[in-house]
């Protein structure tokens, strides 16, 4: 298992067996397509003995590679009636792997430079408060604040002495959907203004209870910029209520 510490502390060690093999091939100036297996196996085992140079969390993988090298060596030593064709070369699989890995390493070195460049550029981590949409110092209001506002409003409505229109049924569910739809469109809703838009007291009351339901279900959030100011209602971005 790789662990975060193992590669932060030991940056100069060989991460895996291919790393080590590539290093040896370069050090010995060996043609990667024609690896003298006996030489490289000896070198490899040598390094494996000097444990401090390899990532110990990967020991099993290093040992596995050693086994593979020894196996390839033994295959090459087998007496044959005819010389090996290229396709039969027991080194083939390893060579392909090394060639591909070498390319990846080269790409890594280019990407590392790009990473370095990008790390010197700083973007912002958070959005500054946006005008109007800004949620600067908003406080979440309690149900009490909400209710208080509502009854103040109701008193005002009564004073207006408007005619109560009967005959229409306002369902809580429809009202909740309507509020959500309004919020979806306008993103923020002014509590008082919204109530003033209601046709009559009954509808206003249903709206109020719908809002309570939505707050309870944590679908919307009611906030007040300062005490005794109007209450604004927002859609909760992440409306989840985990237990």
């Amino acid at each position, binding site marked *: 298992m790789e662990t975060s510490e193992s*590669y932060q502390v030991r940056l100069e060690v060989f991460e895996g067996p291919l790393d080590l093999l590539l290093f040896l091939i370069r050090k010995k100036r060996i043609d990667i397509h024609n690896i003298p297996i006996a030489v490289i196996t000896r070198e490899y085992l040598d390094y494996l003995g000097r444990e401090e140079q390899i990532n110990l969390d990967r020991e099993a993988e290093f040992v596995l590679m050693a086994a593979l090298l020894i196996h390839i060596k033994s295959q090459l030593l087998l007496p044959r009636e005819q010389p090996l064709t290229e396709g039969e070369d027991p080194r083939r699989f390893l060579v392909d792997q090394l060639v591909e890995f070498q390319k990846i390493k*080269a790409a890594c070195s*280019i*990407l*590392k430079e790009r990473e370095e460049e*990008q790390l010197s550029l700083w973007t912002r981590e958070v959005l500054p408060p946006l005008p109007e949409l800004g949620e600067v110092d908003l406080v979440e209001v309690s149900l009490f604040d909400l209710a208080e506002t509502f009854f103040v409003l109701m008193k005002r409505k009564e004073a207006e002495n408007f005619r109560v229109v009967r005959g229409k049924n306002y369902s809580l569910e429809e009202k909740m959907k309507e509020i959500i739809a309004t919020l979806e469109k306008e993103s923020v809703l002014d509590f008082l203004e919204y109530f003033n838009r209601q046709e009559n007291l009954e509808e206003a009351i249903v709206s109020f209870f719908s809002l309570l339901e939505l707050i309870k279900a944590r679908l919307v959030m009611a906030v007040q910029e300062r005490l005794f100011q109007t209450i604004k209602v927002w859609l909760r971005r992440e409306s989840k209520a985990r237990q």
Partner: protein
Amino acid sequence: MAPGLKDIIESLIFVSLEPLPLEKIKETLSDHPPAEVEQALQELLQSTVSAERGITIIQSGGGYVFTTRPEFDPWVRRFLKIDRKSKLSSASLETLSIVAYHQPITLSEISALRNVDSSYTIKTLLEKKLVKITGRKKSPGNPLIYRTTERFLAYFGLNSLDELPTEEEIAKILGEDKTVEQAPKP
């Protein structure tokens, strides 16, 4: 060109936390002809770059984003009290390049290419949102397949996978290595 179009685009790029793709700018300014929007964007980029101020706009991750200019990195770090931004470990970088070049790819294919079990590294990359799971391979066991993300592109300042180091660039690096190593030869 409509007056202020350039400034509107600047404000849009500014409020976008992720690189803002041209398409999204056009979508927002759909009441202007696309060609005008593009021209205004070009003008904005030119004036921003030539202004040589503290901040600039770069094209990265398939979009446009405001960043500080690189020469101010030391001051920004001093201000934010950040010693160094952490870099990817060589294991992560290796795994990430393999995913980038061989995607879509499975975990066992990655491990085979590295000759190293890569399950921990891939998890780290998933957490950093530099790779993502995008489905399954039609092969025995239907293993999950991985791809790089938009964030991967932005992390390296690339706009698309086409901008990954090319075969030629890679060959050049491999060639340089050889000449260096062969130099001491008599």
